């Protein structure tokens, strides 16, 4: 595939980079990334990946835009309230970059659809809010050997890790099982500073771009934590656990389980 003059101009700041170049931009154009959750994390990730010219971007979420989303979910606007988030997101992404294909999936990830959802993508971004969803995505990606980016945000803090199955630890190596419902505060009860999604979701997009182009080192084997109040980033080393329930030597989890219904309501997990 050859780039048109217009494409060369659109992607010029990428192509100039030694680590990306023409080859890297081609890989981005041929790349396929799935974003699960079109919220605080998914919004900036979707915008940057669309702008970067990722060939196919899937975005999965069954929710509609709510007024309380707009403080941080920058892909949605006030007139979008009530619309499906994935439709609102697709419109913005296509407006930024008409050259890409956006696949809107108006579903919540669950144990029945997750393997179908992630198949056909090179990289998955977990932009979900609930722990069952995060464990579901982790387990499915490990089982399907699909690289993905985990992230979480709350109050003034965020965390991020990249999992490349069989090459490093997974989310379950860090947290063996989800916490019981309401045992740990969620965004709705505890609040979150709007720009936190921008910081962490953008880092997820960064990992997707690095994965597709091969630039630099991925955030595997470490959890990056960010505290906005002290303005500290810390990279904490993580080792794979031999006894990990899904990526360990004798996994007890061999197929994705559990639902991923909305949890920030404080309702059952």
């Amino acid at each position: 595939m050859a780039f048109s003059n217009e494409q060369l101009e659109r992607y010029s700041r990428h192509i100039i980079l030694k680590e990306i170049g023409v080859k890297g931009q081609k890989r981005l154009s041929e790349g396929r990334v799935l974003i699960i959750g079109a919220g605080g994390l998914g919004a900036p990730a979707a915008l940057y990946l669309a702008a970067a010219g990722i060939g196919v971007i899937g975005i999965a979420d069954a929710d509609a835009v709510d007024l309380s989303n707009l403080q941080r979910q920058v892909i949605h606007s006030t007139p979008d309230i009530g619309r499906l988030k994935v439709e609102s997101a697709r419109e913005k992404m296509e407006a930024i970059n008409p050259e890409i294909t956006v696949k809107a999936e108006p579903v919540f990830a669950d144990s029945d659809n997750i393997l179908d959802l992630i198949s056909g993508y090179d990289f998955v971004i977990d932009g979900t809010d609930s722990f069952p969803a995060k464990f579901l995505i982790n387990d499915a990606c490990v089982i399907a050997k699909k690289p993905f980016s985990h992230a979480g945000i709350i109050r003034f803090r965020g965390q991020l890790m990249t999992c490349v199955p069989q090459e490093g630890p997974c989310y379950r190596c860090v947290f063996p099982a989800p916490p019981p419902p309401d045992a740990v505060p969620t965004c709705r009860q505890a609040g979150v500073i709007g720009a936190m999604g921008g910081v962490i979701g953008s880092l997820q997009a960064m990992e997707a771009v690095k994965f597709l182009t091969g630039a630099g080192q991925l955030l595997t084997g470490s959890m990056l934590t960010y505290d906005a109040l002290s303005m500290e980033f810390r990279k904490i080393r993580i080792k794979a656990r031999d006894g990990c329930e899904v990526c360990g030597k004798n996994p007890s989890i061999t197929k994705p389980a559990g639902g991923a219904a909305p949890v920030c309501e404080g309702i059952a997990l």
Partner: protein
Amino acid sequence: MADYTIDAAVDITDVVCPVTFVKVKVAMDELKEGEVISVRMNDGEPVQNVPRSVKDEGHKILKLLDNGDGTYDLIVRKQGD
């Protein structure tokens, strides 16, 4: 005469920074290691910046020829892949 043969040529006199260098990068991407390209560019900003950028990428600049009409030909040998 010259101890090289030109394998390809690209004209970047019709574009401005940063597409100038982008076009050079795209053209060089098509070359094999060791092949030589002639890049026609305008005086001024392009001739100041493009040779430096090409050098930064690790390629070898063989010659910069002044065409006398406000354009230059930069002769570059591709290094690495």
